[in-house]
């Protein structure tokens, strides 16, 4: 390293462990793997973006996470967001819905409508999306454990309203493997959980080819303590697990790979995040080309939603989170994301208030309308620093993926709780560094203000106790009005399909059309698949 400038500056490392030089030159790009892979936007390996003209043609989709209380209240919030310029919906479900419980289940007590909207039957889905043009506004369902049921409801609702599901767009999160690592809304054991995800992919490939049945999430793994390299590596390993599963069931890679999408986290160092996304896009394209032999270029696209990073926000001095959110949005735009869901400044306290949601939306609109982020594609391309870091991040992501494979693969690692254990250990080490002042966080361990009534600066989203009673009343009414025999035979079919290993989706759609409840359908699947037994390790 004789050409390197000597300094007495202390060394700097990014969170992924890469040493950052004080000055970068063209030589660094060459030494880290060369400029060959930078390429052009819209062309393999897509380092610069999956589309030729990116935001110049159409800005990213704005899709704030929203949902609370009853479907009626949520529908109002949807209308508000759309009226304010939002271009997609990102639906938050309450925890009972996410873990497959009806609103009147004793285990749901105190949780109905609290962190998202309550859904028990198709009736709720009909109300939630009333008045929304599903061709213009694409809907993303943030649900995992009970995703197959909610996808079935969404399709049934769309069909009822006259949409052709062969042309219906939209996304379900439906990434159950990451739920075992972080977020925790698992229901069934690991293997049948993967099988259920497979059912949705196979069903969509045949019947709803424009729908994205899975959004693989690095996000929650990062929030649980993974560094940016691990975030990408684990997400890619998980995506490969789903791909391998459906390939074994006979699907052709090009029949579904283009419908896989990703959900990533943004907090921390700006350049590290941008390099992470550019590197990830390139590596994913190579994996899909070289390992899976895809022929359709679209099968090699890393399509993603990014913009959130709740772990970067602080309860201290919450207005600072507005500034952090603006930087996250900037990072997201500089990284070529397809969709943004920006974390709102009150996220460290509560689900977003109307005001906080609007500020997030305006933050993105300011980038689009005032800051020139849509004028040209991948504006950081060619930067000595960013290209070098992109090369280095790609190598590191690949290395972590190889480690996971060498140790028996991601499914085993998750089933045994190894990934969970590794990231939670890292989360603890990071917090200790923060407490010792080795990592600095504004308002937390530096630039603190003396304890004031900080919380009063955050306007809390009000939780309405009566929403739960309203929801239970509707559930009872729906149960009383439906055709009991029809429900019973539909549930029997779902149970039989699940037990015999057939795809449960066609039967599931019939069952939700008969107004079978989330709880009833989940009980069928539990009867066939069993329940997950969490490996608790410290």
């Amino acid at each position, binding site marked *: 390293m004789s050409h390197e400038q000597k300094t007495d500056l202390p060394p700097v490392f990014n969170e992924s462990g890469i040493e950052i030089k004080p000055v970068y030159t063209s030589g660094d790009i060459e030494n880290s793997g060369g400029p060959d892979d930078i390429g052009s936007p819209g062309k393999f390996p897509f380092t610069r973006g999956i589309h030729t003209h990116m935001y110049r043609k159409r800005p990213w989709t704005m899709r704030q996470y929203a949902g609370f209380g009853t479907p009626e209240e949520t529908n109002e919030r949807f209308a508000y967001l759309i009226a304010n310029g939002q271009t997609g919906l990102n639906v938050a479900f309450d*925890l*009972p819905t*996410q*873990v497959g*419980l009806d609103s009147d289940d004793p*285990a*749901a*007590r*105190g*949780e109905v409508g*609290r*962190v998202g909207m309550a859904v028990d039957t198709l009736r709720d889905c009909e109300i939630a999306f009333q008045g929304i043009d599903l061709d213009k506004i694409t809907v993303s369902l943030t649900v995992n454990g009970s995703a197959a049921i909610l996808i079935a409801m969404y399709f049934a609702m769309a069909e009822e309203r006259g949409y052709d599901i062969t042309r219906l767009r939209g996304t379900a999160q439906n990434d159950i493997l990451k*739920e075992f690592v*972080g*977020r*925790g*809304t698992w229901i069934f054991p690991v293997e049948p959980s993967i099988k259920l995800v497979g059912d949705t992919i196979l069903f969509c490939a045949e019947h709803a080819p424009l729908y994205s049945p899975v959004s693989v999430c690095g996000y929650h793994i990062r*929030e*649980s*303590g993974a560094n940016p390299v691990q975030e990408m590596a684990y997400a890619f390993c998980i995506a490969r697990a789903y791909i391998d599963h459906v390939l074994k069931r006979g699907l052709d890679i090009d029949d579904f790979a283009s419908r896989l999408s990703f959900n990533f986290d943004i907090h921390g160092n700006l350049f590290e995040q941008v390099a992470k996304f550019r590197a990830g896009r390139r590596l994913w394209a190579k994996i899909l080309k070289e390992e899976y032999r895809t022929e359709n270029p679209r099968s090699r696209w890393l399509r993603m939603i990014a913009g959130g990073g709740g772990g970067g926000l*602080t*309860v*201290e001095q919450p207005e600072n989170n507005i500034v952090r959110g603006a930087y996250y949005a900037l990072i997201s735009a500089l990284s070529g994301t397809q969709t943004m869901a920006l974390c709102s400044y009150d996220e*460290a*306290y*509560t689900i977003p208030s109307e005001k906080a949601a609007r500020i997030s939306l305006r933050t993105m609109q300011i980038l689009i309308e005032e800051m020139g982020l849509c004028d040209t594609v991948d504006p950081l391309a060619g930067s000595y620093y960013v290209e070098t870091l992109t090369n280095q991040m790609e190598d590191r992501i690949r290395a972590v993926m190889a480690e996971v494979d060498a140790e028996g693969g991601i499914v085993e690692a998750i089933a045994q709780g190894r990934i969970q254990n590794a990231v*939670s*250990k890292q*989360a*603890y080490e990071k*917090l*200790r560094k923060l*407490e010792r002042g080795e990592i600095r966080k504004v308002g*937390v361990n530096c630039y603190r203000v003396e304890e004031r009534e900080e*919380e009063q600066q955050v306007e*809390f989203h009000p*939780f309405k106790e009566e929403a739960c009673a309203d929801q239970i009343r509707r559930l009872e009414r729906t149960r009383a009005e439906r055709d009991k025999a029809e429900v019973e035979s539909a549930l029997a079919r779902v149970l039989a399909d699940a037990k015999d290993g057939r795809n449960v989706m066609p039967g599931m759609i019939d069952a939700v059309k008969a107004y079978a409840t989330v709880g009833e359908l989940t009980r069928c699947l539990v009867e066939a698949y069993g329940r997950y037994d*969490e490996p*608790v390790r*410290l």
Partner: protein
Amino acid sequence: MKRKKPIRVLLAKPGLDGHDVGAKIVARALLEAGCEVIYTGLRKTPEQIARSTCDEDVDVLGLSILSGSHIPICQTLKPLLEKLGLGDILWIVGGNIPKGDRDALATLGVDAVFPVGTPTQSIVGFIHEKLS
């Protein structure tokens, strides 16, 4: 006076909330501070938590709740603890707890609330002070 036996702590995740980063961090901090920690894992019912608190013979019960449902959960748990003669166990709650709810939790018998952002050493310090 120094305790002979290490302090035993049950850390529980009640309700349906799946956010366990904080609970696991606190568990590690307490382990490092010499406590014995039993972490329950996710989605434990108040009945299960009361039962484990009794069976594990712990000195401290800690709940971690980030979903906003801390009050109904603690309301259900309180009589269950009392029934098992655990009404005066050192009971702490952490997570996403608004200031306005702290009095209500205190009334239910919660000894301390440690909201998001609390330094781990404050929790360790509190437990040691109360039990030494």
